[in-house]
């Protein structure tokens, strides 16, 4: 089992994607199937960007086991008021500035859902959000 941990800064877009890129490198080294790496990278990048775009700070922990990759993405932030709404494609509360960069299309959470086998959102308004994701490695 390989475990990777990262701290993510809210608001710092210049570093967004660093954790995802490190995880991608490790998955490649471990010879995980290409198509699974692609799925994991999409999901993890969107989760990472959501900390940067919507929260104050957070952490990412990725556990790579022989059977699956588990990702725990937790942040201190505003939380999500309505998860059903947030999961809808196109829904976004991103600022005008963030949208101008091309983020805030409201496709992040739907992208995550499409690319993993399990997705749980735990959120408390005013406190933070934690996203538990799992990708199975045995069904390519």
């Amino acid at each position, binding site marked *: 089992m390989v475990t990777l941990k990262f701290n993510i800064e809210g608001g710092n877009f210049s570093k967004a994607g660093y954790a995802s*890129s490190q995880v991608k490198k490790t998955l490649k080294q471990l010879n995980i199937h290409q198509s699974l790496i*692609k799925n994991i*990278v999409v999901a993890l990048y*969107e989760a990472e960007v959501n900390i940067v775009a919507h929260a104050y700070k957070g952490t990412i922990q990725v556990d790579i086991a022989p059977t699956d990759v588990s990702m725990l993405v937790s942040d201190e932030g505003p939380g999500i008021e309505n998860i059903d709404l947030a999961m809808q494609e196109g829904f976004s509360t991103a600022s005008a500035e963030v949208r101008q960069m091309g983020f805030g*299309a409201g496709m992040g959470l*739907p*992208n995550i859902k499409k690319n993993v086998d399990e997705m749980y959102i735990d959120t408390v308004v005013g406190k933070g959000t934690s996203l538990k994701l799992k990708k199975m490695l045995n069904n390519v």
Partner: protein
Amino acid sequence: MKVTELIEKLDLKVYTKNVNLEKEINGGYVSDLLSDVMGNASEGNVWITLQNHLNVVAIASLKDLACIILVKGIEPSLDVIAKANEEQIPILGSTEKTFELSGKIYQLLM
């Protein structure tokens, strides 16, 4: 078609230095929404966009895209070029608008 051939045929500007231009292009994606590209572009695609910041390079690298083409003469800043050099992602430029450029690339690739 290789990135070099595309540069030659469309007279594209090359902003990056010492980046491999022999990569094979297998198609393209046209979008300025980063999550759209993240979710829908494929490895080996050219990405045609007007977005011009560090995250564009990060996405191109994460998705193993063949290159980025900036439209309408938009020029990348030095930090974007530096990151692209490091990540080995060619950043190219065209003076054409998105529709015209995409049309030409489509014809060349199909």
